[in-house]
Protein backbone atom coordinates (compact mmCIF):
# COMPACT_ATOMS: atom_id res chain seq x y z
CA UNK A 1 0.00 0.00 0.00
CA UNK A 2 2.96 2.27 0.72
CA UNK A 3 4.09 1.88 -2.87
CA UNK A 4 0.62 2.80 -4.07
CA UNK A 5 0.88 6.16 -2.37
CA UNK A 6 4.34 7.17 -3.53
CA UNK A 7 4.53 5.96 -7.11
CA UNK A 8 3.04 7.91 -9.94
CA UNK A 9 1.72 5.25 -12.31
CA UNK A 10 -1.19 3.22 -11.08
CA UNK A 11 -0.42 0.23 -13.30
CA UNK A 12 3.16 -0.11 -12.17
CA UNK A 13 2.27 0.26 -8.50
CA UNK A 14 -0.32 -2.45 -8.80
CA UNK A 15 2.49 -4.62 -10.16
CA UNK A 16 4.82 -3.64 -7.33
CA UNK A 17 2.03 -4.30 -4.85
CA UNK A 18 1.60 -7.73 -6.40
CA UNK A 19 5.31 -8.52 -6.13
CA UNK A 20 5.43 -7.29 -2.54
CA UNK A 21 2.35 -9.24 -1.42
CA UNK A 22 2.52 -12.63 0.27
CA UNK A 23 0.33 -14.15 -2.45
CA UNK A 24 2.26 -12.50 -5.30
CA UNK A 25 5.59 -13.74 -3.96
CA UNK A 26 4.11 -17.19 -3.57
CA UNK A 27 2.88 -17.16 -7.16
CA UNK A 28 6.36 -16.14 -8.38
CA UNK A 29 7.95 -18.86 -6.26
CA UNK A 30 5.54 -21.43 -7.71
CA UNK A 31 6.04 -20.15 -11.25
CA UNK A 32 9.82 -20.46 -10.96
CA UNK A 33 9.38 -23.98 -9.58
CA UNK A 34 7.02 -24.86 -12.40
CA UNK A 35 9.47 -23.66 -15.05
CA UNK A 36 12.25 -25.60 -13.32
CA UNK A 37 10.07 -28.70 -13.75
CA UNK A 38 10.21 -28.03 -17.49
CA UNK A 39 13.99 -28.04 -17.23
CA UNK A 40 13.88 -31.36 -15.35
CA UNK A 41 11.89 -32.95 -18.17
CA UNK A 42 14.28 -31.67 -20.85
CA UNK A 43 17.33 -32.67 -18.83
CA UNK A 44 16.01 -36.15 -18.12
CA UNK A 45 15.06 -36.67 -21.75
CA UNK A 46 18.63 -35.76 -22.74
CA UNK A 47 20.18 -37.94 -20.02
CA UNK A 48 18.25 -40.97 -21.20
CA UNK A 49 20.38 -40.90 -24.37
CA UNK A 50 22.97 -42.51 -22.08
CA UNK A 51 21.05 -45.75 -22.48
CA UNK A 52 21.33 -45.48 -26.27
CA UNK A 53 25.09 -45.74 -26.03
CA UNK A 54 28.17 -43.54 -26.08
CA UNK A 55 27.75 -42.25 -29.63
CA UNK A 56 24.13 -41.25 -29.27
CA UNK A 57 24.80 -39.44 -25.99
CA UNK A 58 27.95 -37.69 -27.21
CA UNK A 59 26.18 -36.53 -30.36
CA UNK A 60 23.28 -35.20 -28.36
CA UNK A 61 25.65 -33.33 -26.04
CA UNK A 62 27.60 -31.85 -28.93
CA UNK A 63 24.46 -30.72 -30.72
CA UNK A 64 23.21 -29.15 -27.50
CA UNK A 65 26.45 -27.28 -26.88
CA UNK A 66 26.59 -26.10 -30.47
CA UNK A 67 23.30 -24.27 -30.02
CA UNK A 68 24.11 -20.54 -29.73
CA UNK A 69 21.14 -20.02 -27.41
CA UNK A 70 22.55 -22.33 -24.74
CA UNK A 71 24.39 -19.61 -22.74
CA UNK A 72 21.13 -17.64 -22.67
CA UNK A 73 19.18 -20.68 -21.49
CA UNK A 74 21.81 -21.40 -18.84
CA UNK A 75 21.61 -17.83 -17.61
CA UNK A 76 17.83 -18.09 -17.44
CA UNK A 77 18.08 -21.35 -15.56
CA UNK A 78 20.46 -19.91 -12.97
CA UNK A 79 18.14 -16.90 -12.59
CA UNK A 80 15.14 -19.20 -12.03
CA UNK A 81 17.00 -21.20 -9.40
CA UNK A 82 18.14 -18.05 -7.61
CA UNK A 83 14.63 -16.56 -7.69
CA UNK A 84 13.09 -19.79 -6.38
CA UNK A 85 15.64 -20.05 -3.57
CA UNK A 86 15.53 -16.36 -2.63
CA UNK A 87 11.74 -16.29 -2.42
CA UNK A 88 11.66 -19.52 -0.41
CA UNK A 89 14.19 -18.20 2.09
CA UNK A 90 12.30 -14.90 2.35
CA UNK A 91 9.05 -16.73 3.04
CA UNK A 92 10.76 -18.87 5.66
CA UNK A 93 11.96 -15.77 7.54
CA UNK A 94 8.57 -14.08 7.24
CA UNK A 95 6.94 -17.21 8.63
CA UNK A 96 9.32 -17.38 11.56
CA UNK A 97 8.55 -13.74 12.32
CA UNK A 98 4.83 -14.50 12.13
CA UNK A 99 5.12 -16.84 15.14
CA UNK A 100 7.76 -15.40 17.45
CA UNK A 101 6.81 -17.63 20.40
CA UNK A 102 6.62 -21.27 19.41
CA UNK A 103 4.27 -23.90 20.79
CA UNK A 104 5.54 -26.12 23.60
CA UNK A 105 3.55 -28.92 21.99
CA UNK A 106 2.61 -28.86 18.30
CA UNK A 107 0.95 -31.88 16.75
CA UNK A 108 -1.38 -30.71 14.00
CA UNK A 109 -4.13 -32.87 12.55
CA UNK A 110 -2.25 -34.91 10.01
CA UNK A 111 -2.54 -32.75 6.89
CA UNK A 112 1.19 -32.30 6.39
CA UNK A 113 2.95 -34.76 4.16
CA UNK A 114 6.54 -36.04 4.29
CA UNK A 115 7.17 -33.83 1.26
CA UNK A 116 5.70 -30.68 2.77
CA UNK A 117 7.55 -31.14 6.07
CA UNK A 118 10.92 -31.45 4.38
CA UNK A 119 10.75 -28.74 1.68
CA UNK A 120 13.64 -26.73 3.14
CA UNK A 121 15.75 -29.82 3.74
CA UNK A 122 15.21 -31.34 0.30
CA UNK A 123 15.73 -27.90 -1.22
CA UNK A 124 19.14 -27.59 0.46
CA UNK A 125 20.03 -31.15 -0.57
CA UNK A 126 19.13 -30.41 -4.20
CA UNK A 127 21.19 -27.22 -4.15
CA UNK A 128 24.23 -29.07 -2.75
CA UNK A 129 23.78 -31.74 -5.39
CA UNK A 130 23.53 -29.21 -8.24
CA UNK A 131 26.76 -27.53 -7.12
CA UNK A 132 28.65 -30.84 -7.03
CA UNK A 133 26.94 -32.07 -10.20
CA UNK A 134 27.84 -28.98 -12.24
CA UNK A 135 31.33 -28.74 -10.74
CA UNK A 136 32.27 -32.33 -11.53
CA UNK A 137 30.46 -32.93 -14.82
CA UNK A 138 30.69 -29.49 -16.44
CA UNK A 139 33.74 -27.84 -14.94
CA UNK A 140 35.62 -31.12 -14.47
CA UNK A 141 36.48 -30.52 -10.85
CA UNK A 142 37.97 -33.77 -9.61
CA UNK A 143 39.51 -34.56 -12.99
CA UNK A 144 38.47 -35.78 -16.39
CA UNK A 145 37.30 -39.37 -16.26
CA UNK A 146 37.48 -40.25 -19.94
CA UNK A 147 38.06 -39.17 -23.52
CA UNK A 148 34.47 -37.98 -24.12
CA UNK A 149 31.45 -36.84 -22.13
CA UNK A 150 29.91 -40.30 -22.00
CA UNK A 151 33.09 -41.79 -20.56
CA UNK A 152 33.45 -38.85 -18.19
CA UNK A 153 29.91 -39.27 -16.82
CA UNK A 154 30.02 -43.06 -16.58
CA UNK A 155 33.45 -42.75 -14.97
CA UNK A 156 31.95 -40.65 -12.19
CA UNK A 157 28.89 -42.86 -11.84
CA UNK A 158 31.10 -45.89 -11.22
CA UNK A 159 32.14 -44.26 -7.98
CA UNK A 160 29.62 -45.72 -5.50
CA UNK A 161 29.78 -42.63 -3.28
CA UNK A 162 29.03 -40.38 -6.21
CA UNK A 163 26.25 -42.64 -7.50
CA UNK A 164 24.82 -43.02 -3.98
CA UNK A 165 24.70 -39.25 -3.46
CA UNK A 166 23.10 -38.89 -6.91
CA UNK A 167 20.34 -41.34 -5.95
CA UNK A 168 19.79 -39.63 -2.60
CA UNK A 169 19.55 -36.23 -4.28
CA UNK A 170 17.05 -37.30 -6.95
CA UNK A 171 14.98 -38.99 -4.24
CA UNK A 172 15.06 -35.54 -2.61
CA UNK A 173 13.86 -34.03 -5.89
CA UNK A 174 10.96 -36.51 -5.92
CA UNK A 175 10.02 -35.67 -2.33
CA UNK A 176 10.30 -31.94 -3.07
CA UNK A 177 8.04 -32.31 -6.11
CA UNK A 178 5.53 -34.49 -4.25
CA UNK A 179 4.58 -31.34 -2.34
CA UNK A 180 5.73 -28.77 -4.87
CA UNK A 181 3.61 -29.66 -7.88
CA UNK A 182 0.26 -29.78 -6.10
CA UNK A 183 1.24 -26.73 -4.06
CA UNK A 184 2.01 -24.77 -7.23
CA UNK A 185 -1.34 -25.77 -8.73
CA UNK A 186 -3.10 -24.54 -5.59
CA UNK A 187 -1.10 -21.31 -5.68
CA UNK A 188 -2.04 -20.68 -9.30
CA UNK A 189 -5.64 -20.98 -8.16
CA UNK A 190 -6.46 -24.26 -9.87
CA UNK A 191 -9.70 -25.26 -8.24
CA UNK A 192 -11.82 -27.21 -10.62
CA UNK A 193 -13.74 -29.90 -8.73
CA UNK A 194 -13.12 -32.51 -11.43
CA UNK A 195 -9.75 -31.65 -12.99
CA UNK A 196 -7.75 -30.31 -10.08
CA UNK A 197 -7.76 -33.48 -7.93
CA UNK A 198 -6.74 -35.44 -11.02
CA UNK A 199 -3.97 -32.95 -11.83
CA UNK A 200 -2.68 -33.20 -8.26
CA UNK A 201 -2.49 -36.98 -8.57
CA UNK A 202 -0.67 -36.58 -11.88
CA UNK A 203 1.72 -34.26 -10.04
CA UNK A 204 2.55 -37.07 -7.66
CA UNK A 205 3.09 -39.42 -10.59
CA UNK A 206 5.33 -36.79 -12.16
CA UNK A 207 7.40 -36.55 -8.96
CA UNK A 208 7.87 -40.32 -8.83
CA UNK A 209 8.66 -40.55 -12.56
CA UNK A 210 11.26 -37.78 -12.41
CA UNK A 211 12.96 -39.35 -9.39
CA UNK A 212 12.87 -42.84 -10.90
CA UNK A 213 14.02 -41.59 -14.30
CA UNK A 214 17.05 -39.77 -12.94
CA UNK A 215 17.86 -42.53 -10.45
CA UNK A 216 17.93 -45.11 -13.25
CA UNK A 217 21.23 -43.60 -14.48
CA UNK A 218 23.39 -43.96 -11.36
CA UNK A 219 21.78 -47.32 -10.58
CA UNK A 220 22.46 -48.76 -14.03
CA UNK A 221 25.84 -47.17 -14.71
CA UNK A 222 26.99 -47.50 -11.13
CA UNK A 223 26.30 -51.16 -10.64
CA UNK A 224 24.79 -52.93 -13.65
CA UNK A 225 26.35 -51.58 -16.85
CA UNK A 226 28.71 -53.93 -18.68
CA UNK A 227 32.25 -52.68 -18.28
CA UNK A 228 32.83 -51.08 -21.67
CA UNK A 229 34.93 -48.34 -20.13
CA UNK A 230 37.09 -50.87 -18.33
CA UNK A 231 40.27 -48.86 -18.88
CA UNK A 232 38.95 -45.80 -17.04
CA UNK A 233 37.25 -47.76 -14.30
CA UNK A 234 40.50 -49.60 -13.63
CA UNK A 235 42.35 -46.29 -13.45
CA UNK A 236 39.71 -44.99 -11.09
CA UNK A 237 40.14 -47.99 -8.84
CA UNK A 238 43.91 -47.68 -8.88
CA UNK A 239 43.89 -44.07 -7.74
Amino acid at each position, binding site marked *: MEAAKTCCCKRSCRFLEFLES*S*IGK*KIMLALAGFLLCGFLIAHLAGNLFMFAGADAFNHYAEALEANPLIPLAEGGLVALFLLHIALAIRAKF*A*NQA*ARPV*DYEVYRGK*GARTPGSRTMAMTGALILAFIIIHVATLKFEVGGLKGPDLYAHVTGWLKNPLYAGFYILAVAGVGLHLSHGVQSALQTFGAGHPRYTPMLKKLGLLFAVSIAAGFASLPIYFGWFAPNTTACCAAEEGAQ
Partner: protein
Amino acid sequence: MNLTLKVWRQKDAKSPGGLVEYQVSGVSNDMSFLEMLDILNEELVVKGEDAICFDHDCREGICGMCALMIDGQAHGKDKAATSCQLHMRRYQDGDTITIEPFRAKAFPVVKDLVVDRSAFDRIQAAGGFVSVGTGGAVDANCLPVPKQNAEKALDAASCIGCGACVAACPNASAMLFVAAKVSQYALLPQGRPEREKRALAMRSAMDAEGFGHCSNEYECEAACPKDIKVSNIARLNREFLRASVLAE
Protein backbone atom coordinates in the same frame (compact mmCIF):
# COMPACT_ATOMS: atom_id res chain seq x y z
CA MET B 1 -11.35 -39.27 36.24
CA ASN B 2 -8.24 -37.49 37.41
CA LEU B 3 -6.16 -35.44 35.05
CA THR B 4 -2.91 -33.51 34.97
CA LEU B 5 -3.12 -30.21 33.13
CA LYS B 6 -0.22 -28.15 31.89
CA VAL B 7 -1.65 -24.71 31.28
CA TRP B 8 0.07 -21.67 29.78
CA ARG B 9 -0.02 -18.89 32.36
CA GLN B 10 0.95 -15.38 31.37
CA LYS B 11 0.14 -12.32 33.44
CA ASP B 12 -0.21 -9.91 30.51
CA ALA B 13 1.04 -9.22 27.00
CA LYS B 14 4.41 -8.00 28.21
CA SER B 15 5.25 -10.56 30.89
CA PRO B 16 6.90 -13.84 29.98
CA GLY B 17 4.67 -16.89 30.34
CA GLY B 18 5.16 -20.55 31.06
CA LEU B 19 3.38 -23.87 31.54
CA VAL B 20 2.03 -24.49 35.04
CA GLU B 21 0.95 -27.94 36.19
CA TYR B 22 -2.43 -28.53 37.85
CA GLN B 23 -4.23 -31.64 39.07
CA VAL B 24 -7.97 -31.88 38.44
CA SER B 25 -9.96 -34.63 40.07
CA GLY B 26 -13.53 -35.84 39.81
CA VAL B 27 -13.93 -34.96 36.14
CA SER B 28 -17.00 -36.65 34.65
CA ASN B 29 -17.26 -38.08 31.17
CA ASP B 30 -20.22 -35.86 30.44
CA MET B 31 -18.41 -32.59 31.02
CA SER B 32 -17.27 -30.42 28.19
CA PHE B 33 -13.64 -29.39 28.06
CA LEU B 34 -14.54 -25.86 29.18
CA GLU B 35 -16.59 -27.18 32.11
CA MET B 36 -13.54 -29.11 33.21
CA LEU B 37 -11.61 -25.82 33.15
CA ASP B 38 -14.45 -24.17 35.12
CA ILE B 39 -14.04 -26.82 37.84
CA LEU B 40 -10.33 -26.16 38.03
CA ASN B 41 -10.93 -22.41 38.16
CA GLU B 42 -13.41 -22.76 41.02
CA GLU B 43 -10.82 -24.71 42.98
CA LEU B 44 -8.17 -22.08 42.21
CA VAL B 45 -10.46 -19.27 43.35
CA VAL B 46 -11.29 -21.10 46.60
CA LYS B 47 -7.55 -21.47 47.21
CA GLY B 48 -7.16 -17.73 46.61
CA GLU B 49 -5.23 -18.19 43.38
CA ASP B 50 -5.73 -16.38 40.10
CA ALA B 51 -8.25 -18.18 37.85
CA ILE B 52 -7.07 -19.27 34.40
CA CYS B 53 -8.31 -16.83 31.75
CA PHE B 54 -9.78 -18.38 28.63
CA ASP B 55 -12.18 -17.05 25.99
CA HIS B 56 -15.66 -18.51 25.59
CA ASP B 57 -19.16 -17.32 24.88
CA CYS B 58 -21.81 -19.50 23.23
CA ARG B 59 -20.37 -22.86 24.29
CA GLU B 60 -22.19 -24.49 21.41
CA GLY B 61 -19.75 -24.08 18.54
CA ILE B 62 -21.17 -21.02 16.84
CA CYS B 63 -19.33 -17.96 18.12
CA GLY B 64 -15.69 -18.98 17.69
CA MET B 65 -14.54 -17.42 20.95
CA CYS B 66 -13.14 -20.54 22.58
CA ALA B 67 -9.63 -20.61 21.15
CA LEU B 68 -7.49 -23.26 22.77
CA MET B 69 -4.48 -25.18 21.53
CA ILE B 70 -5.00 -28.55 23.21
CA ASP B 71 -2.08 -30.98 23.09
CA GLY B 72 -0.73 -29.20 20.03
CA GLN B 73 -4.02 -29.29 18.15
CA ALA B 74 -6.25 -26.27 17.56
CA HIS B 75 -9.56 -26.95 19.35
CA GLY B 76 -8.26 -30.35 20.46
CA LYS B 77 -8.38 -33.78 18.99
CA ASP B 78 -11.81 -33.78 17.32
CA LYS B 79 -12.34 -32.86 13.68
CA ALA B 80 -14.75 -30.09 12.71
CA ALA B 81 -15.43 -29.10 16.33
CA THR B 82 -14.59 -26.16 18.56
CA SER B 83 -12.95 -26.43 21.99
CA CYS B 84 -16.34 -25.98 23.65
CA GLN B 85 -17.70 -28.96 21.72
CA LEU B 86 -14.89 -31.22 22.90
CA HIS B 87 -16.02 -33.59 25.64
CA MET B 88 -14.11 -35.20 28.44
CA ARG B 89 -15.23 -38.66 27.33
CA ARG B 90 -12.47 -38.28 24.73
CA TYR B 91 -9.95 -38.54 27.59
CA GLN B 92 -8.94 -41.23 30.03
CA ASP B 93 -8.12 -41.24 33.70
CA GLY B 94 -4.51 -40.22 34.28
CA ASP B 95 -4.11 -38.30 31.00
CA THR B 96 -1.87 -35.26 30.85
CA ILE B 97 -3.24 -32.41 28.73
CA THR B 98 -1.24 -29.38 27.60
CA ILE B 99 -3.24 -26.22 26.92
CA GLU B 100 -1.70 -23.24 25.16
CA PRO B 101 -3.04 -20.09 23.56
CA PHE B 102 -3.28 -19.75 19.77
CA ARG B 103 0.14 -18.48 18.80
CA ALA B 104 0.87 -15.86 16.17
CA LYS B 105 2.49 -12.45 16.15
CA ALA B 106 -0.83 -11.08 14.91
CA PHE B 107 -2.65 -12.73 17.87
CA PRO B 108 -0.84 -11.27 20.90
CA VAL B 109 -1.58 -12.92 24.24
CA VAL B 110 -3.78 -10.76 26.45
CA LYS B 111 -3.64 -13.03 29.50
CA ASP B 112 -3.09 -16.78 29.96
CA LEU B 113 -5.03 -18.44 27.13
CA VAL B 114 -6.78 -15.30 25.87
CA VAL B 115 -5.41 -13.81 22.66
CA ASP B 116 -6.36 -10.62 20.84
CA ARG B 117 -7.86 -11.61 17.50
CA SER B 118 -8.91 -8.14 16.43
CA ALA B 119 -6.54 -8.51 13.46
CA PHE B 120 -9.35 -10.54 11.88
CA ASP B 121 -11.80 -7.70 12.45
CA ARG B 122 -9.46 -5.25 10.74
CA ILE B 123 -9.07 -7.56 7.72
CA GLN B 124 -12.85 -7.92 7.55
CA ALA B 125 -13.29 -4.16 7.83
CA ALA B 126 -10.91 -3.65 4.91
CA GLY B 127 -13.30 -5.21 2.41
CA GLY B 128 -15.34 -8.10 3.78
CA PHE B 129 -18.70 -6.52 3.04
CA VAL B 130 -20.95 -5.35 0.22
CA SER B 131 -21.30 -1.58 0.08
CA VAL B 132 -23.15 -1.14 -3.19
CA GLY B 133 -26.91 -0.89 -2.91
CA THR B 134 -28.42 -4.17 -4.02
CA GLY B 135 -32.01 -2.90 -3.86
CA GLY B 136 -35.02 -4.63 -2.42
CA ALA B 137 -35.66 -8.32 -2.71
CA VAL B 138 -36.19 -9.12 -6.38
CA ASP B 139 -38.09 -12.00 -7.85
CA ALA B 140 -35.97 -15.09 -7.25
CA ASN B 141 -35.71 -15.92 -10.91
CA CYS B 142 -34.33 -12.50 -11.88
CA LEU B 143 -30.99 -13.16 -10.27
CA PRO B 144 -29.98 -16.70 -11.07
CA VAL B 145 -27.50 -18.24 -8.62
CA PRO B 146 -26.40 -21.76 -9.49
CA LYS B 147 -27.10 -24.12 -6.64
CA GLN B 148 -23.48 -25.25 -6.35
CA ASN B 149 -22.35 -21.60 -6.01
CA ALA B 150 -24.95 -20.94 -3.34
CA GLU B 151 -23.75 -24.03 -1.46
CA LYS B 152 -20.10 -23.02 -1.73
CA ALA B 153 -20.84 -19.46 -0.64
CA LEU B 154 -22.79 -20.70 2.37
CA ASP B 155 -20.01 -23.15 3.26
CA ALA B 156 -17.49 -20.29 3.15
CA ALA B 157 -19.84 -18.08 5.15
CA SER B 158 -19.95 -20.63 7.96
CA CYS B 159 -16.49 -19.44 9.05
CA ILE B 160 -16.78 -18.25 12.65
CA GLY B 161 -13.44 -16.43 12.64
CA CYS B 162 -12.04 -18.39 15.57
CA GLY B 163 -8.47 -18.29 14.27
CA ALA B 164 -7.84 -22.04 14.41
CA CYS B 165 -6.50 -21.87 10.84
CA VAL B 166 -3.80 -19.43 11.95
CA ALA B 167 -3.08 -21.40 15.11
CA ALA B 168 -2.72 -24.72 13.28
CA CYS B 169 -0.75 -23.36 10.33
CA PRO B 170 2.99 -24.06 10.64
CA ASN B 171 3.46 -20.58 9.14
CA ALA B 172 0.76 -18.76 11.15
CA SER B 173 -0.92 -17.79 7.90
CA ALA B 174 -4.45 -16.39 7.83
CA MET B 175 -5.16 -17.46 4.26
CA LEU B 176 -8.06 -19.78 5.07
CA PHE B 177 -9.90 -17.08 7.00
CA VAL B 178 -9.36 -14.44 4.30
CA ALA B 179 -10.19 -16.99 1.60
CA ALA B 180 -13.51 -17.80 3.26
CA LYS B 181 -14.42 -14.13 3.59
CA VAL B 182 -13.45 -13.34 -0.02
CA SER B 183 -15.14 -16.46 -1.34
CA GLN B 184 -18.52 -15.93 0.26
CA TYR B 185 -18.90 -12.77 -1.83
CA ALA B 186 -16.97 -13.77 -4.95
CA LEU B 187 -19.41 -16.63 -5.52
CA LEU B 188 -22.55 -14.52 -5.41
CA PRO B 189 -23.78 -11.81 -7.78
CA GLN B 190 -24.16 -9.27 -4.96
CA GLY B 191 -20.44 -9.52 -4.23
CA ARG B 192 -19.28 -9.28 -7.81
CA PRO B 193 -19.24 -5.47 -8.31
CA GLU B 194 -16.55 -5.06 -5.64
CA ARG B 195 -14.67 -8.30 -6.09
CA GLU B 196 -11.37 -6.78 -7.30
CA LYS B 197 -11.36 -4.03 -4.71
CA ARG B 198 -12.17 -6.55 -1.99
CA ALA B 199 -9.46 -9.07 -2.94
CA LEU B 200 -6.78 -6.37 -3.08
CA ALA B 201 -7.83 -4.64 0.14
CA MET B 202 -8.23 -7.78 2.23
CA ARG B 203 -4.92 -9.23 1.02
CA SER B 204 -3.22 -5.97 1.88
CA ALA B 205 -4.78 -5.87 5.35
CA MET B 206 -3.84 -9.51 5.94
CA ASP B 207 -0.16 -8.90 5.17
CA ALA B 208 -0.13 -5.68 7.19
CA GLU B 209 -1.18 -7.63 10.31
CA GLY B 210 1.97 -9.77 10.07
CA PHE B 211 0.47 -13.18 9.36
CA GLY B 212 2.74 -15.76 7.72
CA HIS B 213 2.85 -16.93 4.12
CA CYS B 214 0.75 -19.90 3.07
CA SER B 215 2.79 -22.87 1.88
CA ASN B 216 -0.19 -25.16 1.26
CA GLU B 217 0.31 -27.48 4.22
CA TYR B 218 -3.49 -27.67 4.65
CA GLU B 219 -3.32 -27.94 8.45
CA CYS B 220 -5.83 -25.07 8.47
CA GLU B 221 -8.48 -27.17 6.76
CA ALA B 222 -7.81 -30.08 9.11
CA ALA B 223 -8.18 -27.81 12.16
CA CYS B 224 -11.16 -25.75 11.00
CA PRO B 225 -14.16 -26.38 13.25
CA LYS B 226 -16.44 -25.41 10.37
CA ASP B 227 -14.69 -27.57 7.80
CA ILE B 228 -13.84 -24.67 5.48
CA LYS B 229 -12.08 -26.16 2.47
CA VAL B 230 -8.69 -25.11 1.11
CA SER B 231 -10.28 -24.85 -2.33
CA ASN B 232 -11.29 -21.43 -1.00
CA ILE B 233 -7.58 -20.56 -0.79
CA ALA B 234 -7.20 -21.48 -4.45
CA ARG B 235 -10.13 -19.14 -5.12
CA LEU B 236 -8.47 -16.34 -3.13
CA ASN B 237 -5.25 -16.81 -5.11
CA ARG B 238 -7.29 -16.64 -8.28
CA GLU B 239 -9.25 -13.59 -7.14
CA PHE B 240 -6.08 -11.78 -6.11
CA LEU B 241 -4.28 -12.59 -9.36
CA ARG B 242 -7.32 -11.54 -11.33
CA ALA B 243 -7.69 -8.30 -9.38
CA SER B 244 -3.98 -7.49 -9.72
CA VAL B 245 -4.34 -7.66 -13.50
CA LEU B 246 -7.84 -6.27 -14.01
CA ALA B 247 -8.45 -3.70 -11.26
CA GLU B 248 -8.40 -0.11 -12.44
